[in-house]
C-alpha cells in the first residue's frame, strides 16, 4: 500500500513537473513545434552593423538549438546593404530570405514586390502568443505601412529625436530647460558667449542626408512641410519651410566650430566630450552618452522632448525592421526566425544585450525607466512624432523616390546653411527639383 502511494505521488509529481515545465516555458513549447515542422531548414538574412544586431547575435544560437533552423547572417555596413538591396531589386532576384530594412527603403521594397506583406504571417499559426505585435509602438509599426494598407516590416529598433542637455551646466548658470525653440536659441547663445570651452548646441549638418535628417525635425514646428497633405503638392517653398531653414541656419553660430561638416558621430562626440551644453540628436545617441568609456558627461545629462516652435511641437520616427523576401522558398522558417527575435517574450534578453528598445512594455516599465533616464523622453518624443503623423506629415516621405528628395533637400539646404546661396534660392531650387523628381 505504502509503496503504491509513493508510486502515485511520484507519478503526480512527475506529471506536475513536466506540465509546469511546459507551462513555464512556452518558448520551448513553441520551438518544439517549429522544430518538428521546419527543423533542418537553412535561412540567410542580410543585416547592417547595428547594436540590435549584436544583441540578436547572442540570441541566435539558442534559436538554432531550439528550432533546428540554421541561420546565416550576412552582415554589412548600412550603405552596402542599401546598395545590395538596390542591386537585387534592379536585378529582380533576391538572394536572401529576410533583410533588415530601414524606413527610408520601405516604399521601394513594398512597391517593387521584393518583400511580402506581413499581415498574413502575423495572423498565422506560426506566430507564437508571446510575440505580441500590438506591443510594438504604433509609430514604429506604421513606418513600414504601405499604400495597400499592409505592413512590410517588423520593427525592432526605433529611433526618434529629442533634446539632450547638461543638467549640471544649466543648473550652474540658472537656465531653465528650454521648452521653445526661441529659448533654445537664447540658451545656446548664452553658453557659446559666456562659457569657455562650451558651445551652445550640437547637431549634425553635413551636406546630404545628414542635413535633411536634422532639418526635417525643424520643419513642422515652424509650419513647414515637404508635401502638402491636403493637395499632395510639393510645398518646400512655403513660408514655414523658409522659417525653419532660417532658424537652423541662425542656430549655426552657436554650434561647435565645424558643425557644417558634422555627421552624427562628430555631433555626438562634441556633446559627449563636454563641448556642448545642448544637443538635438537621435535617441540612438543616448546609450552612448551614458557610456562612461566613451562619454565624459555620463550621469550629467538630462533628456526632454523637443521644444515647441511657433507652429507646435513635433518630432519624427526612423527605424529598422525585418522584411521577408518574396523569392524566399522557406518563408515559414524565416517568419519563425523574425517572430522569435522580435517577440515580447525575448525582449528582456534583447535589451540586456544592448538591443534598441521598440516596445511599449519596455519603455513604460518603471524599473527600466529608472535604469535608462532617456526612456521617458523617448516616449514623449514618440508622442510628438505621432502628433506629426496625425497632421498627415512625416520626416521621411513615404515614397520610393525619397532618397532623391532627401539628397536634393540636403544639398540645397546645406548650401543655404553655409551661405553659399540664400535661403530663398535654396527653397526655389528644392521646390523645382523635388517636383521634377516626384513627377517622374
Amino acid at each position, binding site marked *: 500500500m505504502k509503496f503504491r502511494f509513493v508510486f502515485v505521488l511520484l507519478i503526480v509529481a512527475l506529471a506536475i513537473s513536466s506540465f509546469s515545465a511546459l507551462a513555464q516555458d512556452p518558448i520551448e513549447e513553441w520551438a518544439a513545434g517549429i522544430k518538428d515542422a521546419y527543423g533542418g531548414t537553412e535561412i540567410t538574412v542580410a543585416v547592417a*552593423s*547595428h*547594436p540590435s544586431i549584436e544583441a540578436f547575435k547572442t540570441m541566435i544560437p539558442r534559436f538554432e538549438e531550439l528550432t533546428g533552423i540554421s541561420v546565416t547572417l*550576412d552582415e*554589412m*555596413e*548600412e*550603405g*552596402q546593404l542599401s*546598395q*545590395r538591396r538596390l*542591386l537585387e531589386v*534592379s*536585378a529582380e532576384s533576391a538572394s536572401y530570405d529576410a533583410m533588415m530594412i530601414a524606413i527610408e527603403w520601405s516604399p521601394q521594397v513594398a512597391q517593387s514586390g521584393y518583400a511580402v506583406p506581413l499581415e498574413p504571417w502575423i495572423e498565422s499559426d506560426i506566430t507564437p502568443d508571446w510575440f505580441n505585435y500590438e506591443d510594438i509602438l504604433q509609430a514604429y509599426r506604421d513606418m513600414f505601412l504601405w499604400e495597400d494598407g499592409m505592413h512590410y516590416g517588423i520593427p525592432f529598433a526605433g529611433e526618434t529625436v529629442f533634446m539632450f542637455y547638461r543638467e549640471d551646466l544649466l543648473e550652474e548658470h540658472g537656465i531653465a530647460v528650454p521648452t521653445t525653440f526661441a529659448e533654445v536659441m537664447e540658451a545656446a547663445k548664452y553658453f557659446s558667449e559666456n562659457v569657455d570651452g562650451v558651445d551652445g548646441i550640437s547637431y549634425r549638418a553635413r551636406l546630404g542626408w545628414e542635413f535633411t535628417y536634422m532639418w526635417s525635425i525643424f520643419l513642422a514646428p515652424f509650419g513647414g512641410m515637404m508635401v502638402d497633405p491636403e493637395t499632395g503638392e510639393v510645398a518646400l517653398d512655403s513660408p514655414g519651410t523658409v522659417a525653419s531653414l532660417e532658424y537652423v541656419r541662425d542656430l549655426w553660430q552657436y554650434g561647435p566650430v565645424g558643425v557644417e561638416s558634422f*555627421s*552624427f*558621430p562628430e555631433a*555626438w*562626440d562634441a556633446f559627449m*566630450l563636454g563641448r556642448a551644453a545642448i544637443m538635438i540628436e537621435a535617441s*540612438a545617441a543616448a*546609450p*552612448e552618452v551614458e557610456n562612461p*568609456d*566613451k562619454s*565624459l558627461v555620463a550621469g550629467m545629462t538630462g533628456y526632454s522632448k523637443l521644444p515647441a516652435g511657433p507652429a507646435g511641437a513635433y518630432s519624427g520616427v526612423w527605424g529598422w525592421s525585418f522584411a521577408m523576401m518574396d523569392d524566399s522558398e522557406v518563408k515559414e522558417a524565416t517568419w519563425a526566425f523574425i517572430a522569435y527575435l522580435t517577440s515580447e517574450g525575448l525582449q528582456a534578453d534583447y535589451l540586456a544585450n544592448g538591443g534598441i528598445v521598440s516596445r511599449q512594455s519596455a519603455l513604460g516599465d518603471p524599473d527600466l525607466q529608472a535604469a535608462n533616464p532617456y526612456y521617458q523622453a523617448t516616449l514623449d518624443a514618440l508622442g510628438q512624432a505621432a502628433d506629426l503623423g496625425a497632421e498627415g506629415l512625416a520626416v521621411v516621405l513615404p515614397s520610393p523616390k525619397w532618397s532623391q528628395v532627401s539628397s536634393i533637400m540636403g544639398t540645397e539646404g546645406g548650401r543655404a546653411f553655409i551661405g553659399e546661396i540664400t535661403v530663398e534660392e535654396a527653397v526655389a531650387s528644392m521646390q523645382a527639383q523635388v517636383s521634377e523628381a516626384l513627377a517622374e
Partner: protein
Amino acid sequence: MKLGNLRALLSSRFLDLLTIGVVAAFLFPYIFMVSSAFKTRLDTFAYPPIFWGFTPTLEHFENIFSDMNILFYMKNSTIIAVCSTLLTILISIPATYSFARFRFRYKEGVAYGFLFLQMVPGISIVFALFFIAGSLNLSDTHIFLIVVYLLWNVPYAIWMMRGFVEGIPVELEESAMVDGASRFKAFRLITLPLMAGGIAATAILIFIGVWNEFSVAFFLTSTEARTMPTTIAFFMTHSGIKWGPMFATATIGTLPVVIFALLVRRYFISALTFGAVKG
C-alpha cells in the same frame, strides 16, 4: 678664410638639420596614426593630443581580428592584387616587346591609344561597370575586379616596361639570333632576364595601386569580394565612428605595403622615376 669655412660648415649643418626636419615632418602623421591604434577612445580625442606616455591597449586589434574578421578582407585584397598583377604582366610582356622591338605602321598611335585609356577615371565608368557586372552575373566577384583593373594596369605596364626593354641593346638579341637561336629563344634567354628588374618594379607599382584602389572596389563589391581599403565604411556605425579599430585596420592594411616598399625601395624609386624620365 677660416670664418668662411665656419660659415660653410654651419650652413651645411643647418641644411642637414633642415633635411632631417623635412623628412620627419612627412613621417610624423603616419607615426602618430600608428600610435593612435594603441590608444583608448578617450585618449584619441584628448586635446591637447597625447603623443607619448599613454597606456597602450591591444583591444582594437583584438576587435578587428575577432569581430570584424579583417583577415577575410585581407584575403580578398591579396587575391585580387596578386592575380591582377600577374595577369597584367603576362599580357603586357609580349605587347611591350612588340612596341619596343618591331617597327610597324600606326605604332605610336596604338601606343598612345593605350595611354589614353589608362587616363579614364575609375569613378566615371564605375557605374557603367556596375550595370555590366549585373548583366554578366558577375557582381561582387573577385574575377570581375581582377579583369576590370586590367583596363588601367595593362597600358601602364606596357608604357613602363617599354622603356626598360628599349634600354637593353638590341645587338645582344641579334647576336644570339645569328648564332641560330629563334627570336623567341633569344628573347627568353637574353632580354627577359635583363628586364627582370623592370618587370619587378612595374609589378610592385601595380600591386600597390590595386591594393589601395578604392572607388572601383567600393561600388562593385559588397560582401563577397570586399577589399581592405573599402572597409572604412564599417567604422561608421550607429554608435559613432570606431576610431580605434579604424586606426588598427589602417595600420594593418598599410604596414605590409610600407615594409614591402621599403624593402624594394631601389626598384620602387627606379620604377617611379624611370617612367617619368623616359615618358
